[in-house]
């Protein structure tokens, strides 16, 4: 009788053990999947932030690329890309710059006297640097860089 009881106990323990192993494996698969999905979404979000900022600036520059239309200026102490356009005889300027952790844009008349705080937030941005050398505009953020050749500028001498 004791032997039979012991056998029942051993069988039961083995079944419970197997159930525990199954539960542990299930948890492991769930955690692996969740971790993989988290990494995937983080990577995709970082790629979106990286790509969108430089491509937005590139598109704005290409739209405004005409003689004297693209300049680098100091806007309220911040380095900014200044895109100039003339509408019905009036000169308007679009400033693209980084301020307070955001890529910002402000469009106003040339003598509007705006300040960096007035700009509309476009994207979160960190470490935006702009340089314009010999009609080659270099846009750099913390994670990406893009070079644009201004068609409207001077010619390149070989």
């Amino acid at each position, binding site marked *: 009788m004791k032997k039979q009881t012991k*056998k*029942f106990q051993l*069988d*039961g323990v*083995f*079944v419970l053990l*197997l*159930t525990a*192993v*199954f539960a542990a*494996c*299930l948890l492991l*698969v769930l955690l*692996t*999947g969740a971790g*993989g999905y988290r*990494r*995937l979404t983080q*990577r*995709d979000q*970082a*790629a979106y932030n*990286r*790509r969108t900022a*430089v491509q937005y600036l*590139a598109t704005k520059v290409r739209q405004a690329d005409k003689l004297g239309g693209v300049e680098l200026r100091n806007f309220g102490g911040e380095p900014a890309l200044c895109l100039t356009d003339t509408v019905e005889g009036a000169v308007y300027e679009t400033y693209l710059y980084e301020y307070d952790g955001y890529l910002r844009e402000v469009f106003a008349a040339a003598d509007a006297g705006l300040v960096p705080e007035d700009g509309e937030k476009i994207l979160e941005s960190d470490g935006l640097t702009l340089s314009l050398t*010999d*009609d*080659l505009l270099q846009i750099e953020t913390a*994670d*990406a*860089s*893009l*070079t*644009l*050749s201004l068609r409207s500028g001077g*010619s*390149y*001498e*070989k």
Partner: protein
Amino acid sequence: MRSKAPLVLMEQLLMVLVFALAAALCLRTFVFSEQMSRQSESQDRAVTTCQTVAETLKHCQGDYAAAAVLTGGTWDGHTLGVSSGEKTPGDYVVFATPADTGDALLGGAEITAFTADGQWLFGLSVAWQEVEHDA
């Protein structure tokens, strides 16, 4: 009274087998999705680098040696090569090779990006107007 433990045990084993099969498929999918995500990230960076190379070649009007200096790449007389940069070293390489546009006044190049193991990532064509300079 016969013990039902062996029957339960068999059911449990069958359940674990089915779960193991499903888990193997899921893990395979997770690994594949991770690879695709990394490739997508490399492709995203490669597109930006290809654009930079294209714009630099346009600016230099086909002067590959000067473009190599500006992009930090190398020019061996046939192909301009630009690596993926300091932030993602060895991730991909961009190659720019001169292309015949069939027009003497139109210069062109084919720009392609490959991963470290030779897989094609992205490609684009670029052309620029050749300006004749007085001697």
